[in-house]
């Protein structure tokens, strides 16, 4: 593991989060303290140990393939911040080259 260093602004960008300078200044030492605590895990011997992704996992559970009622278009659109003609409207995604 690294020495608990984290480039907060870079990681926030990966997470699609814009941060203010104040937030970066606040989060930096807090996150380094948390990662410093997490460093203790690196001292444990975990060779040959399988990872646990889910406690008491159920694998490959399928429900019967039968049609059932799902949410209506109106229900799906009721919380949309912007909509037109029964669709969700977003800013232009494809730009001219």
């Amino acid at each position: 593991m690294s020495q608990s260093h984290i480039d907060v602004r870079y990681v926030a960008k990966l997470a699609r989060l814009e941060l203010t300078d104040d937030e970066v200044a606040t989060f930096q030492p807090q996150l380094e303290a948390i990662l410093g605590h997490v460093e203790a895990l690196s001292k444990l011997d975990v060779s040959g140990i399988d990872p646990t992704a889910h406690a008491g996992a159920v694998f490959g559970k399928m429900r019967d393939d039968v049609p059932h009622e799902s949410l209506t278009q109106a229900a799906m659109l009721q919380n949309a911040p912007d909509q037109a003609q029964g669709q969700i409207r977003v800013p232009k995604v494809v730009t001219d080259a």
Partner: protein
Amino acid sequence: MTISKLRQQLVAGETTPAAILNNLAGEISARDGQTGAYLSYNLEAALAEAANADLSLPLGGIPIAIKDNINVLGQPCTCGSKFLENFISPYDATVIRKLRAAGAIPFGRMNQDEFAMGSSTENSALQITRNPHDPARIPGGSSGGSAAAVADFTAIASLGSDTGGSIRQPASHCGVVGLKPSYGRVSRYGLVAFASSLDQIGPLTQTVEDAALILQAIAGGDPLDSTCLDAPVPDYLSGLNDGVKGLKLGIPKEYFGEGIDPGVRKNVEAAIQALAAQGAEIVPISLPHTEHAVATYYVIAPAEASSNLSRFDGIRYGHRAANPSDILDLYQKSREQGFGPEVKRRIILGTYVLSSGYYDAYYTRAQKVRTLIRRDFETAFAQVDAILSPVAPSPARKIGGSSNDPLHEYLSDIFTLAANLAGIPGISIPCGTTDFDGGKNLPVGLQILAPHLGEAKLLRIAKAAEIKS
């Protein structure tokens, strides 16, 4: 008033569902202005359901308050976040459908830490919730509104969610019963996901019997949640009074070390002695990886949260930033404006531990330590029927006491989050009060942990502890 007593009165015709609801609305008006447990409630909608309540059902006519991250058709579901401040649920969660099938009436939306991230409810972006036992103090969290309302008698019972202690810890701080079922016992369909390998829905109630009544109604398989188990749901009520004679109860030495408030220790030890006096055998045990639980949890839970919360992008629902320059700007600004600081911290932390170059060192390693923590419990449960411990190292702290030190706050989750990592059920029941940090008579909780799907025995032990403490 408990569910079981109200049910007797309803069946005897001494009260009506509408009278119960109107009475609750009066209590809310009288006291919740100070406590702040309710984010909203819709009395008219509840009264309409009450008019058709089937009193022959196990929860017939009983209002249940709902944490604001569980969807109820037509009602708000803010998750304590500005991002979802105006969101109206388009569907019912499975637990709501099941509560209604048992005759209950969902009533009230309970405050919580934003997206269930926190142990104090101070991370709600919408309002402060105060502990009914001392308004200067936190109710605990993240299901702080659900716990405070039951303690304040503004709710008969409530549902919360528990990812690392978010039902048990506020129950402990507010002096009520809080049950986190086994992973897979209760459907999460319609619960806004925080950390999917850890989240469970459970009840907060006045009594152990009431917790059993609600669990009976909400447990069981669900085709809409592939992690939900089809295992038969036992009768949680029939053996409730069977006592603890002959049961082996483990006391993990790692849960009674330094850092526990003396008043908490004294009350928990007294509760253990009371169970011993009823014929339980007290067995010293060890859960050797306990000290690594916090680090393990605060890798895994933020990792899963960073993935789950990527759905909040400002496109389909929730907050959308005004005048974005392009689609990327829309995502980034909507999330910046919509999320509070704790949610941002955890998203960044989770994104970091999942990022290229750090994934194995943090995330895979934490998953392996999770295996070690799970095995600790398997070894322990080969020796004992259940495990007893404090719920939290100290009683409720003052509001504003930990705002700039998230690591310190995380460390206080030490006794509750291992149960989520291991997928086992846990309950917090009141075990007396103590003075702490200038506060008088603050509630202390006893935690009981049982093997996976061992809720019947868990509730039976809790019932015995409840009588004697």
